């Protein structure tokens, strides 16, 4: 067979013909030549024959687990890829909003579907009680540490409802004023033995997101070193056996929730003390005070040092505990609630006294607080750093000072009562709960101010939700103005300082605030 007469163009056309890439007229031309040209036909057959040999290559087949692991890899990648970097609402893009708000549930559902199949199911069922409380156990140390937390009264679960009896103390009301309730959600896992069937039933009833979360915890649990897995199991067993297990478990969840609001650096400092309970507790106290001061500073929009905050808190505490004022509070608070207040520690009681006092005036004219005297104000002023003292002095007349003091008091109450706002929650609030126009207003602000306002709105909304209401547009505008309202409302409906206009207060008050007709109610009053 002599194919030497064939050119490269001939062969190129032959290959294209064999690949079905020639138009019909050219294909017909090739076929005609094949009938008359043996060498041409032989070349075509050789090209086709060697090409057909490729069929001797084995068809590759993936291993039995390939499909499952591939889908798992995708689902794990999905979980890891959403950014958890520093929160900056301005960086939120519409696509991210769509993905997070619409796609998340579906994607989580799918991820779970795959993970659920992939989990060693018996393991998941066996470890379910630990997985259900995984984060709490992860941070909870040991039973001894939880007992110390309880004894220190840091997360003692003291709630407004525990202090203030309501006219109809419905169960939902009891949790409605628990500052932790919102964080914990309604279904804090109860401790107790569960049969595999009960676990299966609970898993079956879970929503897609819960299942995804459970699968994620299983992943994390399995990734722990053996000794750490053992610690979690031991803690669970110890809580099961402890008569106070339920309470300690709740504390563990509260502690975990609080830890999740800390910066990475603060979390790391706590983690480094995990084997030194006393030092860890001291660090917790320190971090809480520091964060409370920071939050107070954000709320009052004045650069307040921790020392200033401490001075203001101590002044407010002394003010509440002053015998004359305490008598006034006691007159307005029911004996039962008063008795509960007395069982609280000195550090907390003043806050709850103010809150209770205000709560009792709900539905009627709010009760003004006893007016502090000049002597009181001077004492406070003398304990502050220059910057904050100047801010107080700059307020000018006594009425303005009282207004400022009222703002500080409300900020102090808010900073103590409201747990830190988790960045993710703040982000979700910005994304899901605010209208585009409110977001647009916020976006005009510098980042720090945006964050501050957003936090104020969030806290105010949380407070309103606990009271069974929600913010309306006018109230929102009050938080967006040049002088934003504070989450804890004024003691007076007209938005003025919550102190009495007249009256002796503690000691003399001279001169009394000038009488003026109450200003018209501000439309942005959150109440």
């Amino acid at each position, binding site marked *: 067979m002599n194919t030497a007469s064939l050119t*490269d163009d001939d*062969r*190129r056309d032959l*290959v*294209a013909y*064999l*690949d*079905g*890439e020639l138009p019909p007229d050219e294909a017909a031309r090739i076929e005609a030549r094949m009938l008359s040209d043996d060498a041409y*036909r*032989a070349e*075509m*057959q*050789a*090209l*086709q*024959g*060697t*090409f*057909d*040999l*490729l*069929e*001797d*290559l*084995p*068809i*590759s*087949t*993936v*291993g039995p687990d*390939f*499909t499952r*692991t*591939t*889908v798992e*890899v*995708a689902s794990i*990648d*999905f979980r890891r*890829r959403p950014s958890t970097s520093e929160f900056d609402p301005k960086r939120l893009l519409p*696509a991210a909003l769509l*993905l997070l708000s619409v*796609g998340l549930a*579906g*994607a989580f*559902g*799918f*991820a779970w*579907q*795959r993970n659920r199949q992939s989990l060693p199911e018996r393991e998941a069922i066996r470890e379910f009680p630990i997985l259900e409380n995984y984060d709490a156990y992860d941070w909870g140390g040991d039973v001894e540490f939880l007992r110390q937390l309880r004894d220190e009264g840091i997360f003692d679960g003291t709630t407004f409802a525990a202090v203030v009896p309501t006219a109809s103390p419905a169960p939902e009301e009891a949790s409605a004023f628990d500052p932790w309730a919102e964080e914990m959600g309604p279904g804090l896992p109860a401790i107790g033995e569960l049969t595999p069937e009960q676990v299966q039933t609970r898993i079956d009833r879970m929503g897609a997101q819960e299942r995804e979360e459970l699968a994620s915890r299983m992943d994390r649990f399995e990734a722990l070193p053996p000794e750490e897995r053992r610690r979690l199991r031991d803690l669970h067993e110890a809580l099961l056996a402890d008569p106070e297990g339920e309470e300690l478990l709740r504390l563990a969840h509260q502690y975990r929730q609080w830890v999740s609001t800390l910066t990475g650096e603060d979390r790391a400092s706590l983690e480094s003390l995990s084997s030194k309970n006393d030092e860890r507790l001291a660090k917790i106290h320190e971090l809480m005070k520091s964060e409370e001061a920071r939050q107070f500073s954000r709320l009052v929009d004045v650069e307040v040092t921790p020392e200033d905050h401490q001075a203001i808190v101590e002044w407010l505490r002394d003010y509440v505990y002053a015998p004359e004022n305490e008598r006034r509070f006691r007159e307005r608070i029911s004996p039962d609630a008063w008795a509960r207040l007395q069982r609280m520690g000195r550090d907390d009681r003043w806050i709850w006294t103010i809150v209770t006092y205000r709560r009792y005036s709900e539905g009627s004219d709010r009760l003004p607080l006893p007016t502090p005297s000049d002597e009181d104000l001077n004492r406070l002023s003398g304990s502050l750093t220059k910057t904050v003292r100047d801010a107080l002095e700059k307020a000018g007349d006594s009425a303005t000072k009282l207004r400022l003091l009222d703002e500080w008091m409300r900020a102090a109450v808010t900073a103590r009562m409201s747990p830190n706002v988790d960045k993710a929650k703040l982000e979700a609030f910005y994304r899901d709960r605010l209208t585009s126009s409110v977001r647009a207003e916020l976006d005009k602000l510098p980042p720090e101010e945006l964050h501050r306002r957003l936090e104020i709105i969030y806290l105010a909304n949380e407070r309103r939700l606990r009271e069974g209401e929600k913010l309306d547009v006018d109230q929102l505008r009050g938080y967006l103005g040049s002088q934003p309202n504070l989450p804890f409302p004024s003691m007076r409906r007209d938005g003025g300082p919550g102190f009495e206009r007249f009256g002796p207060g503690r000691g003399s008050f001279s001169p009394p605030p000038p009488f003026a007709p109450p200003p018209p109610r501000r439309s942005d009053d959150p109440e």
Partner: protein
Amino acid sequence: MTQTPGGAVAKPSEDPTLSGASPTESAIDPDARLMLRVRDDDAFAFEELVRRYQNRLLTVLEHSGNGRDQAEDLVQETFLRVFRARKTYRADAKFSTWVFTIAHNVAKNAIRRRSRRKEVSAERESSTDSAPAGIEGLAQANSGWMPARRLDKSEAGQMVRLALDSLSERQRVALLLTKFENMSYQDVAETMGLSVQAVKSLLFRARLNLKAMLEPYVEQGRRPHSAPPDEAD
């Protein structure tokens, strides 16, 4: 029609559902419909796509010069990218072309990474589009290969594999896509980021090189199931 790893696939020109510039839900290919469901976070659709394409991708990626384990990793990486890109998927392209384009890019990146790590073998590095290694040399290098002996299917497969290995990476990929995926030149061009004309030249050289290396075995009838060319056609 050639048997493919995932089953027979019609050529685009034979598939009436591919006509039309703006495909609707009913007009697009079934895999593209599945991908649209993946875009909407349908877990089962994603799994089904993985099932449909895993062996097809693996076959092309493995025979195009990657080791078995590496090819599996590349397939997994391909699916991961498919998944990550699901929200931006548009059904105006044939799904198989899209997924093989991703696979090709994944494989190219892997080759670049290996090159940087100097892990490419000297043999593979010396391979060029126009300079195929001789089949005799390859056969001799493979111990136990006796030219006079009849080859069973497994051995024939190895021989073809050696011939294929002597081609350049681009020639291999183009050949495998046309052979196992029945891709048109247009689809190969899209997948490999080349012009149709370049693909035509690439495949022409690939087929000639393949013929040069395997023809002696075809002509001497040493393949167990080979038929004379005139009978095969």
